[in-house]
């Protein structure tokens, strides 16, 4: 009765499966979506970022990363590290406080939430009485001071969060000694800022929003000094020696105040509106940093003239006669200054400024002349232009790796050489097993090369395809390079620029041959570029060809976008990948599939109309094949023309507004900055969603037919050296799969190397298979006589793979969205199949062969298929027997863009976008795991007096 056993119940196999497969989400790469708070510990040299979804992420030295998630999923408003501790406190927008700590477990540190607490007032008091606006972790590490909307300051004990009621500083007590006249004008103010005296831990500075500032003596529980500000207060900052402090205000001014024992109610030393005299926006945060040479650094956020520059997100740095207003492309969330934190040091001597903007992290080197930016090793803005596709290449040969890095380093000369200043913790993860590249294609026509070997996703090199084409976009690059007399002295920083000037430039498909260094990329307007790696700058002409994929189709009119115009004559390319062949598909529909064979020097490309093969050695088209059904009008006209989304046009109109604003900088007024665009987009999304919900949800049940639209859409292309016509002779072949379930196979004749330039490459159609279920073909693969997938081109030549078994019979695996089928070759007969949709209702979205090694023995590994379905599940299916091995839920099925963005690696890992700016990395393998593993040691606290690194603490800057 053994034969009646269900497959997959073999205990030996079950054990082996446990040694091979394991699902883990290991690390998030990129920039957190919707950051909302920033904190820094000068003691641990760790930075913390909180998000609107309640996540907190800690970053130190490259590779040192921690992540935590608040259960509430509420916005993180403030983050404060406890001085000299591995602890931090977060304040959420539901007014709850959370204490997190870094603790060591089995050799590595982990971030854990320890306590939570919500401040409660006496019964019947309004919620504003306990609404926390400012948090001060006292240097004694024992208490937190909590400023509230009511003006009262509560004291809670750490780590228990017990309220010490007798130590509450009420606004009544504070106002007692304030002059009558001043007091009458302002009652009931919220606490805007709390700052501990840098030298005397018994004194704290309290700033109220209406302008009153008091110095409070904690020992005697009374105010010692009153500073009667007349402007609405935004923030406070102590000078290092405690003899002065500085306040910044809503009207764009800042004020210096002296603190001395002889004057209990001093007048301001200096009051300045840096970007006056016209009305200015608020300065929301300010730093005053002393230096050895006597000239302080004054660094403040905002304060721009309201009318002309009110929409700028700026931080100004003033040092003597030097002044720069760093201009960010997205809203500034918060920033901090890294400076000498030795308590004994006499001066601050700031070294770097770290700015968290809504869409990127920017670090400015303050020590080097010109204040250049520092290239961050992590938190890369993946979405500086929207990601349109990605491609992963495993195990890059060292030579290619070094050449890419060298090309990239030439692009990064404007960055500072400063070592990364946030260097807390120690990375104890083993070195990555191999060099992996992740290539992302972007909407603006660039391809970015990321080092995806380890925990830190680092930008190695950026390739732009724009130079090949003539676009109306270029000329105003120097818009922001200003003359000497420009005021304010704005300087654009950061890389985030989501505005693509020509959507046709968007990259849709990428293929890199790691052995030969040939790269092909294809884009939205049917452009296919073949590139070669060159270590030097070069100027050359790009060979240009057109591929008419419609051939003889009559009566057709393309209503989509036009093809891109090419530049005539030689074009100068910087070192790196330089295009030498451009093929433009006609009609210029988006390229939907792409394949390159570096050994045969052929590139194949497909669109919704057909596919073509191009010989990039002889620079000659080999053939084109139209796959279009003659009645498919929709595909003929181009999908964009009909289903142009309202959202897109909305975005474009905003883009236009923005562009015109940029060009006429002096124009007054105006609305619609980036955040407004986002708001509008969000609002539109919501409305669209509501509309969808109102419509009756109904699904049509109909069999697919040959007349359906977009059946000719080419989904996959594949090169294989296999037995296409008879079992005695194998030959090069090209396979194509369409949306309508058709598979075409062409036999190719590639001349031998010595006559490669003399004889043409020939192609002949050998087979056409129509799957009766007509589901889109998403993958084609040939298995050799041993059932192993054929190696990549040049893999065998580089001794990196066994040569395929050409003796046994080959098999063809066709993966459609609905089922997987194995056919014999060369005579096509069906051998095996696995139905997914009919049995489970899921459809294949992505499929890739992955090699899984056993974690127990080094000598066992096998190839399986990794399949991602439309439900977000990942299934591992054995080869060649097509048996389901295991299934893991991975992505929410509603997360369509996450599913669409998923890429698998050759060794059972994968990436998908969890937001426009973040890749989640996952692993299906027990053997290949890339995850952070790091230790944060508590540095010795040398002095036991309470004089600590004072103002380094990032105190409450309430965001407007």
């Amino acid at each position: 009765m053994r034969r009646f056993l269900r497959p997959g119940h073999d205990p030996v196999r079950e054990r082996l499966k446990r040694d091979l497969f394991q699902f883990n989400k290991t690390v998030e790469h990129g920039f957190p979506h919707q950051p909302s708070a920033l904190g820094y510990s000068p003691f641990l040299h760790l930075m913390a970022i909180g998000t609107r979804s309640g996540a907190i992420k800690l970053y130190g030295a490259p590779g040192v990363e921690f992540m935590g998630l608040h259960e509430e999923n509420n916005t993180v408003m403030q983050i404060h590290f406890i001085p000299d501790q591995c602890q931090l406190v977060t304040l959420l927008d539901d007014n709850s406080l959370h204490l997190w700590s870094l603790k060591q477990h089995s050799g590595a540190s982990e971030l854990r939430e320890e306590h939570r607490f919500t401040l409660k007032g006496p019964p019947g008091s309004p919620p504003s009485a306990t609404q926390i606006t400012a948090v001060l972790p006292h240097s004694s590490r024992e208490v937190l001071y909590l400023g509230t909307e009511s003006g009262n300051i509560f004291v809670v004990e750490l780590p228990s969060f017990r309220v010490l009621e007798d130590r509450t500083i009420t606004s009544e007590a504070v106002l007692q000694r304030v002059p009558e006249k001043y007091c009458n004008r302002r009652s009931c103010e919220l606490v805007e800022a709390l700052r501990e005296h840098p030298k005397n831990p018994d004194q704290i500075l309290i700033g109220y929003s209406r302008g009153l500032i008091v110095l409070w003596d904690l020992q005697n529980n009374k105010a010692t000094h009153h500073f009667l500000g007349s402007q609405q207060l935004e923030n406070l900052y102590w000078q290092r020696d405690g003899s002065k402090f500085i306040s910044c205000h809503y009207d764009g001014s800042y004020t210096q105040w002296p603190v001395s024992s002889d004057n209990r109610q001093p007048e301001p030393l200096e009051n300045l509106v840096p970007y006056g005299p016209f009305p200015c926006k608020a300065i929301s945060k300010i730093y005053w940093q002393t230096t050895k040479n006597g000239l302080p650094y004054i660094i403040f956020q905002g304060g721009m003239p309201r009318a002309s520059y009110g929409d700028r997100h700026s931080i100004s740095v003033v040092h003597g006669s030097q002044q720069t207003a760093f201009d960010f492309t997205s809203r500034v969330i918060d920033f901090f200054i890294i400076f000498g934190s030795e308590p004994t040091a006499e001066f601050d001597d700031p070294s770097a400024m770290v700015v968290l903007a809504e869409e990127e992290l920017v670090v400015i080197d303050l020590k080097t002349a010109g204040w250049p930016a520092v290239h961050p090793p992590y938190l890369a803005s993946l979405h500086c232009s929207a990601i349109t596709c990605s491609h992963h290449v495993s195990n890059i040969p060292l030579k290619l790796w070094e050449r890419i890095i060298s090309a990239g380093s030439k692009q990064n000369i404007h960055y500072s050489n400063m070592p990364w200043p946030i260097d807390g913790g120690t990375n104890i993860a083993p070195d990555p097993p191999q060099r992996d590249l992740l290539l992302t294609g972007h909407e603006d026509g660039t391809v970015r090369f990321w080092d995806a070997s380890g925990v830190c996703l680092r930008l190695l090199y950026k390739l732009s395809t724009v130079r090949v084409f003539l676009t109306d976009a270029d000329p105003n690059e120097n818009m922001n390079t200003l003359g000497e007399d420009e005021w304010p002295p704005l300087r654009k920083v950061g890389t985030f620029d989501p505005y693509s000037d020509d959507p046709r430039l968007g990259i849709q498909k990428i293929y890199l041959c790691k052995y030969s260094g040939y790269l092909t990329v294809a884009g939205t307007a049917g452009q296919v570029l073949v590139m070669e790696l060159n270590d030097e700058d070069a100027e050359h002409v790009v060979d240009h060809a057109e591929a008419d994929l419609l051939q003889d189709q009559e009566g057709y009119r393309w209503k989509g976008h036009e093809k891109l115009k090419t530049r005539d004559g030689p074009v100068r390319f910087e070192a790196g990948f330089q295009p030498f062949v451009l093929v433009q598909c006609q009609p210029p529909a988006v390229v939907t599939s792409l394949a390159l064979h570096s050994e045969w020097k052929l590139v194949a490309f497909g669109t919704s109309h057909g596919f073509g093969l191009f010989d990039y050695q002889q620079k000659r088209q080999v053939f084109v094949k139209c796959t279009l059904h003659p009645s498919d009008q929709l595909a003929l006209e181009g999908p964009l023309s009909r289903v142009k989304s309202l959202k897109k046009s909305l975005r474009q109109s905003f883009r236009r507004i923005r562009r015109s604003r940029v060009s006429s900088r002096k124009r007054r007024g105006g609305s619609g900055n980036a955040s407004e665009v986002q708001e509008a987009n969000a609002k539109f999304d919501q409305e669209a969603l509501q509309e969808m919900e109102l419509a009756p949800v109904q699904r049509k049940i109909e069999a697919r037919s040959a007349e359906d639209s977009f059946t000719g859409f080419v989904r996959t292309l594949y090169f294989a050296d296999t037995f296409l016509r008879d079992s005695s002779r194998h030959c090069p072949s090209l396979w194509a799969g369409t949306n309508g379930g058709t598979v075409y196979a062409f036999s190719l004749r590639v001349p031998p190397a010595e006559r490669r330039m003399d004889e043409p490459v020939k192609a002949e159609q050998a087979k056409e298979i129509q799957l009766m279920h007509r589901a889109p073909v998403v993958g084609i693969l040939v298995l050799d006589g041993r059932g192993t997938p054929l190696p990549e081109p040049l893999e065998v030549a580089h001794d990196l793979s066994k040569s395929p078994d050409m003796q046994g019979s080959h098999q063809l695996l066709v993966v459609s969205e609905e089922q997987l089928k194995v056919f014999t070759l060369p005579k096509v007969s069906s051998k095996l199949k696995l139905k997914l949709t009919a049995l489970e209702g899921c459809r294949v979205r992505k499929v890739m062969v992955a090699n899984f090694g056993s974690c127990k023995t080094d000598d066992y590994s096998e190839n399986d298929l990794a399949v991602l379905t439309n439900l977000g599940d990942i299934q591992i299916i054995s080869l060649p027997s097509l048996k389901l091995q295991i299934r893991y839920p991975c992505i929410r099925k509603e997360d369509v863009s996450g599913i669409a963005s998923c890429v698998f690696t050759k060794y059972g890992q994968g990436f998908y976008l969890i937001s426009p700016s973040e890749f989640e990395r996952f692993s299906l393998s027990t053997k290949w795991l890339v995850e952070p593993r790091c230790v944060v040691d508590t540095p010795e606290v040398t002095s036991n007096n309470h004089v600590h690194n004072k103002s380094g603490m990032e105190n409450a800057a309430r965001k407007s």
Partner: protein
Amino acid sequence: EFRRFSLERSKPGKFEEFYGLLQHVHKIPNVDVLVGYTDIHGDLLPINNDDNYHKAVSTANPLLRIFIQRKEDADYSAFGTDTMTRKKNVLSNVLRPDNHKKKPHIVISMPQDFRPVSSIIDVDILPETHRRVRLYKYGTDKPLGFYIRDGSSVRVTPHGLEKVPGIFISRLVPGGLAQSTGLLAVNDEVLEVNGIEVSGKSLDQVTDMMIANSRNLIITVRPANQRNNVVRNSRTSGSSGQSTESSLPSSTPNILANFLQGEEESDEEDIIIEDSGEPQQIPKAAPTSESLESLTQIELLHESTQNGFLPSSEVNLNHSAGSISMEYEAQDSDHKSLEEDGTIITL
């Protein structure tokens, strides 16, 4: 008017030739006629293709009595089939009272008219509140022609009545296969698709499953109109006795008795064009013992006999004369199912 003539029993020839012979013998070369014969049970059965002609000849004992009627005044209802079929037709008559009135005017003669469009299957293993409908998409140009939607239904659970989400038929396209069968109606709840329970699956998943199975779609529904069940109740009293269960039989995917793997495979065959030649069906490679399908097929037969009922084809086996070859029988059973839906019996 009677004629008597002889035929070579071992070489009956083709139906076309026989038809020509009849017309010749009766001297009515240009008159369309309907041919019938009486079988061993005394039922009047039609002869209109090679298969039933061969069967008629082979069962002649020794005389084959043939009835010839002019097509225009033919009485279709005169044809009768065996008892098994009669039962089922009672059901389809009751369920389709409208069709019953219209059907006699349809000329049923050549095999193409016998193309099945739908059938009710597994009547004997399903509770009477459920109906399992098979839609034959292949060979017709008709669209399946129905829509499904989300909804909720009330179930009896140990905790009392509970509202659970379900999938319902929301619309039938006029002229579509679903509507023309009369076996599916708006607001019928879909319980299974080709033997797979849909509970817990989203509308999109069920849609994808139905489309993936569209060439041979078997839907189990709980009809919105349950009034017809009374009739069926009285009729099924003699069946295997499982019909009184109030819930679906445990939903292993293989429980569909009539869902023979072989049949399912035959209409799934992909097409290959070699070197721009003629399209051909892709044959199956010799199955290996580790093939998943062969396993399930074995399992299927295994389980169904254990369950204490016989698939209908086997029922027919018992009925047929022992002299008939298996191959012949398989085709015969096929015809049986055709007749079930094609012929209408008046009570």
